[in-house]
């Protein structure tokens, strides 16, 4: 739904890659990166299945499907944002790496991982500082 709204937004916006961004665009960007991290989860599930088994193809197929959805959204996002800015948001995947590690793969979380994620978030915010 958000994607549709930003599509309409682009039709009315003449200059597609500059200044006026709506929060919806950033929300779509963050959601698309969140979705892309799920493909990694599927990859890990696929890797734990016997190769060429039904579940292997299920998870692998799901991984490809998620990457496809992500690719479709990504193209719409970079149409409206500078690449260097949009790309920096990819680092937010690290947050989800931490979350999936904790809730799905029972990995341990230590202080350096949390600090790492916090530093990355600060970095993304600094990239997005707007000069008036």
């Amino acid at each position, binding site marked *: 739904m958000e994607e549709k709204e930003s599509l309409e937004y682009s039709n009315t916006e003449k200059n*597609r890659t500059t200044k006026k961004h709506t929060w919806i665009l950033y929300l779509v960007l963050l959601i698309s990166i969140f979705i892309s991290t799920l493909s990694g989860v599927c990859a890990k599930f696929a890797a734990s299945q016997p190769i060429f088994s039904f579940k292997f193809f299920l998870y692998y197929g799901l991984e490809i499907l998620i990457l496809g959805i992500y690719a*479709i959204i990504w193209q719409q996002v970079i*149409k409206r944002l*500078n690449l260097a800015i949009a790309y*920096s948001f990819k680092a937010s995947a690290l947050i989800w790496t931490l979350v999936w590690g904790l809730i799905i793969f029972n990995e341990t979380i230590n202080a350096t991982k949390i600090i790492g994620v916090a530093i990355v978030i600060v*970095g993304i915010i600094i990239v997005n500082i707007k000069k008036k």
Partner: protein
Amino acid sequence: MIYYFIMVLSVIVASFSQILLKVGANKKYDSIKKEYLNRYVIGGYFLLFLSTLLTIWAYTRIAYTSGPIIESLAYIFVMILSFLILKEKISWNIILGNVIIIIGIIVFYI
């Protein structure tokens, strides 16, 4: 050592793939279908596919945790290529922010 170079090469190829996707996104198309099925987007994803092959090749020899750290170089490559090829304006905060992002990724994976 050569495998680290292959990993860096993979990151460079992936960064060029992003530039191609952006070049494709900057053009006007008369249908949604053509926004995706054009030589830039197809070429971009071909490069990305190539990059995954290089990554797999590199991972046969390099440590698993050093992969994401080397991959984080993409933030710098994409920034430089955006400036050189796409003529995007790269202000001080974009440079600083991306350097901080890389530091965060290194802290996360060490």
